[in-house]
């Protein structure tokens, strides 16, 4: 009994320590440069994305290789409705829910025709869906409707959309930064806190989803679709729910991405991005929230750290010349790490304890 209580105390102490660390982190990173704060923010977005995909792949067992499409839907919803492209400037409390809703709708649209497909057939169709969305973003800058010659420009094509509004609370623009008791907080650091709060919300939401009736139904589906059906689970509905819930999270992250970057283009939403998010889920430990977060942090932060650590200056100092372009070195180490982690930890770095 007393050890249980002590364990509980230890847990709480660890949580508090982690909380303080997360709150101080952007300032530590800020000392190294704002680029590092941006990396932190991107990492948080990836955590959200990985959590969303985890519901689809890790919990419900549906292999989705086009997840980034939902991220794109969220990002473009924000970009189109909060920029000079259409001269629309809606506030965040309209755009974030709208982006998430539209992404969830896209999830339903993807889910409906592929309900009958299994395993790898599902993978290729979702992959195709992701590519379709990307190609549309690239080409919907010059389309005409039947019956008229007017050329419409919806997405501005490969050039992307620039000058996107950032987050604004009651007229206060987050990008402009803030000074609290003489302590300057940059815009990116403010974004960090917003992202952190929303990431916590996502963790809470995904955790509760996973342990709800629906979550258990998803796990039954993952383990054995036929048996799940026999147990009276409506497989069609819960599959659609998995797709749209995962998409919802992706859409939310997409809107935040557009708000922070101020720029979106189709290039950010390629197949490699989907694959990367999937790798985060699998490397971390499918279906296990702490593992997935670890995977996301590792895979999104590691390449950036390598890039900075192995930049031209550093290589000049060590070798006297630039041996390998940092970009190539980054991808080289990154891909090797992916292979090695899987070879030595096939179930992920931090798999859920009850799964065998």
């Amino acid at each position: 009994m007393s050890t249980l209580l002590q364990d509980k105390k230890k847990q709480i102490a660890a949580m508090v320590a982690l909380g303080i660390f997360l709150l101080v982190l952007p300032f530590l990173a800020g000392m190294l440069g704002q680029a590092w704060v941006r990396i932190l923010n991107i990492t948080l977005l990836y955590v959200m994305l990985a959590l969303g995909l985890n519901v689809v792949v890790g919990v419900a067992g549906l292999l989705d290789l086009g997840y980034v499409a939902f991220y794109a839907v969220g990002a473009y919803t924000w970009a189109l409705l909060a920029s000079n492209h259409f001269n629309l400037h809606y506030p965040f409390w309209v755009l974030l829910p709208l982006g998430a809703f539209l992404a969830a709708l896209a999830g339903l649209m993807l889910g409906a025709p592929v309900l009958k497909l299994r395993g790898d057939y599902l993978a290729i169709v979702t992959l195709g869906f992701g590519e379709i969305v990307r190609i549309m973003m690239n080409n919907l800058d010059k389309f005409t409707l039947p019956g008229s010659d007017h050329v419409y420009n919806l997405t501005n094509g490969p050039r992307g959309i620039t000058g996107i509004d950032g987050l604004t609370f009651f007229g206060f623009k987050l990008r402009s930064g803030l000074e609290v008791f003489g302590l300057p907080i940059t815009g990116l650091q403010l974004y960090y806190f917003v992202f952190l709060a929303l990431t916590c919300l996502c963790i809470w939401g995904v955790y509760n989803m996973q342990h709800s009736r629906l979550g258990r139904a998803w796990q039954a589906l993952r383990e054995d679709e036929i048996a799940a059906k026999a147990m009276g689970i409506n497989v069609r509905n819960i599959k659609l729910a998995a797709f749209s819930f995962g998409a919802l999270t992706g859409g939310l992250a997409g809107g935040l991405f557009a708000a922070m970057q101020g720029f979106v283009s189709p290039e950010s939403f390629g197949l490699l991005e989907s694959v990367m998010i999937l790798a985060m889920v699998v490397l971390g430990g499918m279906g296990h929230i702490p593992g997935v977060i670890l995977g996301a942090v590792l895979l999104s932060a590691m390449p950036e750290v390598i890039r900075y650590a192995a930049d031209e200056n550093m290589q000049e100092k060590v070798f006297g010349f630039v041996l390998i372009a940092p970009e190539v070195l980054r991808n080289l180490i990154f891909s090797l790490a992916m292979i090695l982690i899987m070879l030595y930890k096939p179930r992920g770095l931090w798999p859920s304890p009850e799964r065998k």
Partner: protein
Amino acid sequence: MSMDVLLQQIANGLVVGSVYALVALGYTMVYGILQLINFAHGEIVMIGALTALVTANGLLSAGLPSVLALIISIFVAMVVCAISGVLIERIAYRPLRNAPRLAPLITAIGVSILLQQIAILVFGRNYFSFPELIDKTPIQIGAITVTMNEIVIVVTSVALMAGLIWLVHRTKIGTAMRATAENQKVAGLMGIDINKIIGITFAIGSALGAVAGVMVASNYGQAHYYMGFMLGLKAFTAAVMGGIGNLWGAMIGGLILGLVENVGLIFVRGDYKDIFAFIVLVAVLIFRPQGLVGEKVAERA
């Protein structure tokens, strides 16, 4: 006029489709035996093309006639790719044969990125022009225009596919391959060396990929480190459309995808070509979830 355009696009589609089919065979053979999407196969095709390019340039500058240079460089590319394929299987896939299903998929993606980076290190990010080893002057056959290069591509792929079908259905190795695909454990009990058969499968698939790589490079006259990506994606789409794991499916899927893309160009703008391929895929899978010629797998609880 429009009939001529249609015929011409069908001819183009056959050329592209036969390349897709060859690459799709590599995907489908590996999938048939290991139930693994070998993501690195597209990069094998790229390695084949770049190896052949280097070899051919070397041989041409040594003064060899272009036909000889072509044959030798294809052979070298096949050997290099077969060895890479076997090595990849040995290092990245074999240790994970009993691991959760997504683990080898992630290593496959890792290998794919790794091979691209190695190609950048060795060759750089440039587009290399591929030497014109086969005559490319247009030949007029009725209403359509083709080149000798294109004819050679189609004939070679048909020959290779026929050879593969013969190998798989008429030889001892082929029987062993089919047995392994059916049930690895039982095949092992029947005295089949599973690891050897899987190795051979990778070697054959990769060698076919190498030939496809040379075909693409010679057809478009260029090769670069990223050329395997889209080609691999299309070929995999073709394999799934035909019914993955099925040799005939890969061939039919490849040809249909090539035809659909090129005939589709008559109706939609070129920018949307890739969408067209995926929409056809989705349409096919909605009506035949197991692919065009795939067998319906009984649902097991």
